[in-house]
């Protein structure tokens, strides 16, 4: 094959996943008629095995273009590597990614959203998905809390309890710490992640850009869940009582939020 034609064909196939899929399907279909197969002569020396390699190379290129996401989803990407599906994942993701960036490089948020959707779909396909979905959700939450600039925590009323920063609660069916350890262990052996429900709080103070993550018990999670910038202490207590799970007194609630205020999580004027 002429060098310019070879370069152009490869460049076309690497930038057009649909074309690569079409050509690969024709190569792999022994029932194709001679008329259908005749155009393949133009690819001549490109055997089926080379087309499969090209598809993986396309995935590899897409993977490299996702390097900016590595610090944001470190363990999620390590999980792909651990299970030996990293290149395959990005090969599958290439059509969506390449189509999205036809007008130029994607903003990080857009690239992240597309990758997160693709990761969720990948994990759902596999037996290990429950804890990988939890891990992805955990890492995405850290990033989103760190990025957010919303002001939903601002008080509507002076007496309301409001966040002093961004605060998010997430409940998981797995112990995130055990997932971390499992992913970081070499090989596929070792202890499977522990299926024990946990609730994590993610907090970014007003004055800091870093996100703190800590595990909270059920009672704490319940009380914090009703902080919305509008409810005061009495309204929060009413909400907690309606759940039927705990029966705190007003003094219990007051002591809890005084402590949370001292720690810098919330602000309120209870005078």
């Amino acid at each position: 094959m002429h060098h310019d034609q070879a370069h152009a064909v490869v460049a076309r196939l690497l930038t057009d996943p649909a074309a690569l899929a079409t050509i690969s399907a024709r190569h792999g279909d022994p029932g194709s008629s001679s008329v259908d197969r005749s155009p393949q002569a133009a690819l001549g020396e490109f055997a089926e095995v080379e087309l499969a390699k090209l598809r993986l190379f396309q995935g590899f290129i897409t993977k490299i273009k996702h390097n900016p996401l590595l610090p944001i989803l470190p363990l999620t990407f390590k999980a792909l590597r651990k299970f030996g599906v990293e290149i395959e994942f990005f090969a599958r993701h290439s059509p969506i990614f390449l189509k999205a960036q036809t007008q130029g490089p994607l903003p990080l948020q857009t690239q992240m959203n597309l990758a997160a959707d693709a990761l969720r779909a990948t994990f759902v396909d596999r037996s290990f998905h429950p804890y990988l979905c939890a891990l992805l959700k955990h890492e995405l939450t850290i990033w989103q809390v760190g990025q957010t600039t919303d002001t939903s925590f601002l008080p509507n009323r002076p007496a309301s309890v409001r966040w002093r920063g961004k605060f998010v609660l997430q409940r998981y069916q797995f112990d995130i710490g055990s997932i971390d350890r499992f992913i970081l262990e070499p090989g596929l052996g070792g202890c499977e992640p522990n299926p024990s429900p946990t609730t994590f709080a993610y907090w970014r103070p007003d004055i800091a850009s870093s996100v703190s993550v800590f595990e909270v018990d059920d009672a704490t999670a319940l009380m914090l869940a009703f902080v919305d910038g509008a409810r005061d202490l009495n309204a929060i207590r009413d909400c907690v009582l309606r759940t039927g799970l705990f029966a705190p007194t007003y003094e219990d609630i007051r002591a809890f939020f005084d402590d949370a205020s001292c720690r810098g999580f919330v602000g309120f004027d209870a005078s």
Partner: protein
Amino acid sequence: MPAEAGATAVGIAHCAFAERLVIEQPGIVDYVEIPFEQLVHNPRSAELAARVPLILHCASLSMAGNVSPDRQLVESVHHWVRETKTPWIGEHLSYVRADGTWKEIAEHSALFMGGADQSPAGPFNVGYTVSPQYSYPVLDRVHEAWASFEREFGIPILLENGPIYFNMPGSTMSQSTFVTRLCEKSPKIGLLLDIAHLVITSENSGRDPYSLLDEFPLERVVEVHLSGTRREADFCWDDHSDRAPKIVFLLLERLLRRCRPRAITLEYNWDATFPRDILFQDLQRVRDILAGCFNAS
């Protein structure tokens, strides 16, 4: 750049933590290799030159391709050559863009009919370096491009071997033969030997890495790249987010028994969270290998 004749500098590829590293630990590296594309994206990266010498690397000249970089790109490279005071430019022996309007493309337009979308006639920009067809016409093209860019920029252009992941149709020689023939065409051509790429090529083609190394004109090697590799889907892949495997260091030692390059660059630049302790260990490992090869006498 402490890389006079008879000395070898040890540096790193530019990464998210490069600036902090050279501020916090001056002298830990002799230079930082910085991509031209990084400078275009973030010109402030060049401020690093106040603290440590820079070497310019490039992946945009598409030297084996038939779509030359536009004038603006060439002038931008020239600008950064002056700004960084780089002793040379390392550029991939590859192509990035291909002219889809080339006449015979019409033949394979037929291939895509009725199935895939009809894409525009090009040029196609892969956005990544692709190892070219290894043939005499491409050899002539690369030589011409190399000579032209050396004249344009006034400094040496080192050619870097790429990793081979698939067989390019129409190749009539191996990569090592191609590089050897290229060096025979001009005694001035210098090489940037990426040992991880060489390992990848050897693994993916079932070749012995030591004999493959020996096939290259090692006396032309001016700079060396070291990085990680990783196996997946029965292939070996380039991986700058992992440390270089043992074979890379063994090949480095073998190379240093044959020649003395002026610079050895650790490319651990894909992951901003790459462990510093491993970077320091491998910088020391490179220095130990250099000392073992050149200080013993």
